[in-house]
């Protein structure tokens, strides 16, 4: 089946990000197609490569990035939500005259239309949030 996954909460603050990740791994293991993981609200904070968690804890961003690489996942960060919270890629950095960007490998910034498209294309859409 084709699944879409929506993450509405940030890393470490809320378990939603962990649940979404574990769900995604299980769905892939079962042979389902994960059409897209869409990060919205504070969920966009999962995409910063600048997080430095303690070494004995999980690295939530790296975990997503590695999963994306392994399974060619489409990790999409909502541009409007990302701009509010300071998640930028190189294009956004230049456009807004900022001195840095922080998006992690495997994530891409795009519009809310990507969420609607996931709703149209996927057999199931699953939300994880607060």
């Amino acid at each position, binding site marked *: 089946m084709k699944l879409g996954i929506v993450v509405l909460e940030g890393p470490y603050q809320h378990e939603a990000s962990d649940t979404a990740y574990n769900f995604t791994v299980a769905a892939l293991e079962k042979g389902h197609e994960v059409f897209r993981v869409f990060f*919205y609200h*504070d969920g966009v904070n999962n995409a910063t490569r600048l997080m430095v968690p303690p070494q004995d804890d999980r690295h939530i961003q790296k975990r997503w990035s590695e999963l994306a690489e392994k399974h060619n996942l489409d990790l999409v960060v909502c541009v*409007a939500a990302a701009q509010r919270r300071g998640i930028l890629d190189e294009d956004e950095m230049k456009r807004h005259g900022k001195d840095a960007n922080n998006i992690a490998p495997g994530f891409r910034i795009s519009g*809310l239309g990507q*969420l609607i498209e996931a*709703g*149209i294309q996927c057999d199931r*859409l699953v*939300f994880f*949030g607060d």
Partner: protein
Amino acid sequence: MSDVKKFLYVNRKAPHGTIYALESLEVVLIGAAFEQDVALAFLDDGVFQLVKGWDTSELGAKNFQPAYTALGDYDVQKVYVERESLEERGLSEDDLIEMTYEDEDDDFAEKSSIRIVSREEMAKIMADADVILSF
């Protein structure tokens, strides 16, 4: 299945305490361009999103209430508000903002988008949707 899916946005959170209401509304506005069958559901604290008379000036945050009234221009015609959720919170339909759309099948007559429904009807509306966007 036809190309048009029934999208139901379920709003259960109050407007200013978290960003859920505002960013959910932004999805609805963008989603309107995709020509799907769109309906909005307001239940639990979500009904507070439609209570009129916001003044966010002292809070220092944007007042996004006008965007709800503009939804009719985005062809959003079905706004379901749960009666029990209103009553439990001491509210009635009179406390809500006006939301209207122009009915193109009725000489563009201006009609209210708000439909007050019972809890039981709300459960059926959820069961009837193809895609539920939960905020």
